[in-house]
């Protein structure tokens, strides 16, 4: 059964919401006594990641795995976006590591890695959209 484009986007939005609802409490519980602000912060971190993963699985996935997927323009956009994001993540991580080390700042690994992941996915999404609209 093939889903229409609109159905895939709706399903991705639903899955994104469900994943956000499921992951937010888990992230919020990384704090000893989570407050409402902690939950809001957790939702802001998990939301973009959950929606990006949902989009990748339900919207981009079917296009990128077709029989002639290597010929699709979407594959080219994704490859270009991934290449740009890889450079951004490396440069950003290097700059952050240098700043933290030189100022003797100790950041918790979990939230720091989550931020890197969320920023990387957001960067990838923006780069893909920019290529799509070019």
């Amino acid at each position, binding site marked *: 059964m093939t889903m229409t484009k609109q159905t895939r986007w709706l399903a991705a939005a639903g899955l994104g919401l469900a994943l956000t609802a499921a992951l937010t409490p888990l992230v919020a519980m990384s704090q000893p006594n989570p407050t409402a602000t902690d939950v809001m912060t957790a939702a802001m971190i998990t939301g973009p990641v959950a929606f990006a993963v949902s989009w990748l699985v339900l919207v981009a996935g079917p296009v990128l795995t*077709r029989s002639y997927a290597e*010929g*699709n*323009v979407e594959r080219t956009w994704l490859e270009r976006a991934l290449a740009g994001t890889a450079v951004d993540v490396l440069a950003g991580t290097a700059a952050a590591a240098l700043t933290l080390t030189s100022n003797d700042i100790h950041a918790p690994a979990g939230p720091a890695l989550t931020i890197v992941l969320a920023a990387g996915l957001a960067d990838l999404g923006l780069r893909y959209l920019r290529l799509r609209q070019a």
Partner: protein
Amino acid sequence: MPIPNRLTELRQARGWTQRELAERLGVSRQTVISIERHRFDPSLPLAFQLAKVFDCRIEDVFQVDDSTDLS
């Protein structure tokens, strides 16, 4: 810079929509749109597939001559 092509002309001559052509090729409609607008060069296998679908030679789909910028 993408190579000029006659995709729109060949497709319209057969009365096909972009979606129909995409289905015949097994690619996304966005791919057909991007090739027609000269924003995307298809892979070599897809170029051969295009020629096959239109029952012509690759040179009849893509217009390459001495003045074409292939850089």
